[in-house]
């Protein structure tokens, strides 16, 4: 079979062409099956968010607390507001907030909060305050 031909001369395709076709079909059927399976799972509960601290980084004249938002449910949360409070003895000493553009279903995103006081000296509380349906 020469370079320029599209098949084996009988309109049927060489072994390698059929291999490529089979790989393609497997990939497509796999994707579509996954979609159907997930679709039937009916997991469209509203977003269920947990916020955790990843680390604290001292910077020039402030501290950075890196945080992670995890969405445990099956719907995407858009414009997720996250607030971090530094507390001492039940009083809120400082508050910082940030917004996550999107936290998709069963996925996670990272962000950071800046504080003027050292978070390690206080009790740091993170909470999610609201979201929007995309």
């Amino acid at each position, binding site marked *: 079979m020469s370079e320029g031909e599209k098949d084996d001369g009988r309109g049927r395709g060489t072994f390698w062409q059929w291999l490529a076709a089979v790989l393609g079909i497997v*990939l497509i059927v796999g994707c579509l099956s996954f979609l159907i399976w997930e679709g039937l799972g009916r997991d469209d509960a509203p977003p269920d968010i947990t916020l955790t601290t990843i680390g604290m980084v001292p910077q020039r004249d402030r501290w950075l607390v890196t945080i992670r938002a995890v969405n445990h449910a099956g719907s995407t949360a858009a414009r997720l507001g996250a607030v971090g409070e530094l507390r001492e003895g039940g009083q809120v000493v400082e508050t910082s907030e940030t917004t996550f553009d999107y936290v998709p279903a069963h996925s996670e995103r990272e962000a950071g909060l800046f504080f003027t006081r050292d978070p390690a000296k206080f009790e740091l509380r993170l909470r999610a305050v609201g979201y929007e349906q995309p």
Partner: protein
Amino acid sequence: MDGFAAFAVAFAASAGVLLLFNLVHRGMSADEIIGKITLQAVPASFGAVLARAQLGEKSDREERAERETGYWGELFHMMAGAIFFAFNVAPTEEIVVISHKMTHWHALALALASIVAMHAFVYAAEFRGQAAVPEGMSRSSLFARFTLTGYAMALVVSAAVLWLFGRFDGDATAPVLMAVIVLGFPAAIGAAAARLIL
């Protein structure tokens, strides 16, 4: 050499356009400027090659080479077309936003629509006078070997380009797959169109 020349032209054109729109300016670091121009040059170079194929004059040698494109050559053309369309659209927010708004059933329908559209392009070729359906090939053979393989490739290209632009970070499988299928639609159209044009 043609490829390098195309990239050089694309690089210059991208630099010019970005300067014109004030998207690169003083105050940006050197690596940000080079990065932006280089990234922009990728789809621009595809455009340069495409323009030459469509509008330029071909030598006899090139004409003959074109008519003799084998199966793998066609697949390569499809990949180029898919990359071209995917690259232009992937950096935008819209792909990801659309995938967030869709349900799984929408994505399923979009995948099927992409396959149908790709297959329709093959028959559109007949109106242009090109023999896109080689003689003796059965319809189902054609469907499997060009359309399905082509769509699978469009999905792979779509996934690769999305990954390249960092759209997958921290995501579970389902949102990733949805975004791949959304981007796979223009990629599939690009692949089918490239097969017609090139």
